[in-house]
């Protein structure tokens, strides 16, 4: 058994920067690299791409990330775990094999499937958000159960260099190699809870290292243009020391670690994953050196009986238009512009939203009402059933050039399709998972 296990976090969302993962693989002395690339809506959007082309539906950056990482993984003996399979993990594995062939790099890829439960859920099932039936929301495009670490274990046992999945609970991507390497029992709730706390700290990558944290003068973070991504040295009991690669930007401090531990946690006394219900209130953190934080002490209770399912549905279109005003009376001119658009559109669009960017768009009001912004950007947005009707919003805002207040400039207009997400639960027995192997070797090429 290993004495310590080092797991790196090489991506915190689908669009994340590419190079920090390469730095971790090359200089981080890590055994596992995890790329977490699947947001709440990402699977639904991927499912729409798969509808148009059955060979797509995996992460759009998969090829670029794998082309960059494959030689480094091989050279440094790093295993990769990623949910970049999105709506089509098998096609993702085929894409990886194609890259391996081009690079002449022998590779074994294990694909974990079973999360896609669209064919299994009933439209009459109630959502956790509103207790209304799923059918009421609109045409369903995706339904994916959050798999846990257990689903990844056979893939890791297969000896695969790369494990690719669809929907898996983010911390479970990190807990799986801990369970695999240390042989934890799946009812060892305290070890699973500690591992989950570490996985949760790592899952947003740069957010542990000063990303989404910095404030000049108060929360200074060095060299953010080269922000390094984190790793954890995990011990056999699930305690860990966080760190990052030398000569990368950013910092790991008690403050960055605490912010990330509590990030998106709706109950710090009962953080629910498919593996365990973890209590983070018992976590203790200690500085162990520069950019090194010890994290221990999470405790656990038995995992939930059912799995959460994220359901994506088509929610129509949104049209937007923007125009800016600057100088004397900018706020009054922007307000007048908003009033004009409202009068022209609010019969056709009942939920018209009018924002004054630079003044009240973020918090609905200013906590300092005496402040007069030098420049203000008007933003108008509304939902519409078709792209054609959604485009009316931007057109009306653009027309303010010659029909609105003085000095309006810099108009932009947008139309995009909306995919909504609601959740429900499913019995574990109804979500069997499967591992499929894909391989490329020099022998295979010879044959």
């Amino acid at each position, binding site marked *: 058994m290993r004495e310590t296990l080092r797991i790196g976090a090489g991506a915190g969302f689908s669009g994340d920067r590419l190079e920090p993962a390469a730095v971790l693989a090359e200089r981080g002395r890590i055994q596992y690299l995890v790329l977490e690339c699947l947001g*709440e*809506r990402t699977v639904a959007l991927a499912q729409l791409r798969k509808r148009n082309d059955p060979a797509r539906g995996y992460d759009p950056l998969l090829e670029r990330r794998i082309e960059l990482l494959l030689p480094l993984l091989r050279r440094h003996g790093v295993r990769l775990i990623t949910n970049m399979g999105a709506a089509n993990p098998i096609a993702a594995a085929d894409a990886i094999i194609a890259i391996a062939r081009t690079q002449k790099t022998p590779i074994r890829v294990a694909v974990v499937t079973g999360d896609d439960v669209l064919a299994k859920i009933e439209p009459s099932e109630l959502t956790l*958000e509103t207790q209304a039936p799923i059918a009421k929301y609109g045409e369903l495009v995706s339904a994916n159960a959050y798999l846990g670490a257990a689903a990844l274990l056979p893939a890791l046992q297969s000896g695969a260099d790369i494990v690719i999945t669809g929907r898996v609970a983010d911390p479970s991507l990190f807990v799986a190699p801990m369970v695999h390497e240390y042989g934890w029992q799946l009812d060892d709730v305290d070890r699973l809870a500690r591992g989950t706390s570490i996985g949760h700290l790592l899952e947003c990558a740069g957010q542990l290292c000063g990303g*989404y*944290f910095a*404030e000049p003068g*108060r*929360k200074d973070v060095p060299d953010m243009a080269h922000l390094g991504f984190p790793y954890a040295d995990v011990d056999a009991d699930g305690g860990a020391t966080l760190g990052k690669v030398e000569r990368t930007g950013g910092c790991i401090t008690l*403050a960055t670690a*605490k*912010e*990330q*531990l*509590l*990030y*998106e*946690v*709706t*109950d*710090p*006394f009962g953080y629910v994953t498919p593996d365990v219900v973890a209590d*983070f*209130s*018992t*976590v*203790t*953190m200690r500085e162990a050196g520069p950019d090194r934080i010890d994290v221990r002490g999470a405790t656990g209770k038995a995992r939930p009986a059912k799995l959460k399912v994220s359901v994506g549905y088509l*929610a129509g279109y*949104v049209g937007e238009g923007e125009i800016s005003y600057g100088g004397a009376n900018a706020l009054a001119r922007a307000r007048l512009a908003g009033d004009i658009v409202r009068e022209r559109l609010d019969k056709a669009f009942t*939920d018209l*939203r009018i*924002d004054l*960017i630079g003044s009240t*768009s*973020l*918090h*609905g*009001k200013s*906590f300092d009402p005496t402040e007069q912004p030098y420049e203000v950007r008007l*933003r108008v*947005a*509304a*939902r519409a059933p078709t792209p054609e009707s959604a485009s009316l919003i931007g057109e009306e805002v653009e027309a303010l050039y010659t029909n609105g207040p003085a000095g309006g400039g810099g108009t932009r207009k947008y139309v995009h399709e*909306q*995919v*909504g*997400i609601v*959740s429900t639960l499913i019995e574990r027995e109804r979500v069997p998972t499967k591992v499929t192997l894909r391989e490329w070797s020099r022998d295979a090429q010879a044959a």
Partner: protein
Amino acid sequence: MPKLHELAHCRAGDKGDTSILSLIAYRAEDYPLLAERVTADAVRKHLRGIVLGEVRRYELPALWALQFVCDRSLHGGVTTSLALDAHGKSLSYALLEMSV
């Protein structure tokens, strides 16, 4: 009266229509003041117009932190909201505007 911004830092997260705001003291000695003054009710009043639902507060003295879970705060939910900042990422700094 100091603003929370001088005593503590905050990160905003989201789940559906719920905004989750941490409040972490820079110094251990300021945690009792936060625990006393920054009640769930005080946060709900401060964020009136933004938070339309219930506010639950969790106390985490080992981390010098409070966690506020604010229901009905994201215009019906991140994925279908018309708001500019649909995730409410910027709400951390709305909380830090509060005076204690």
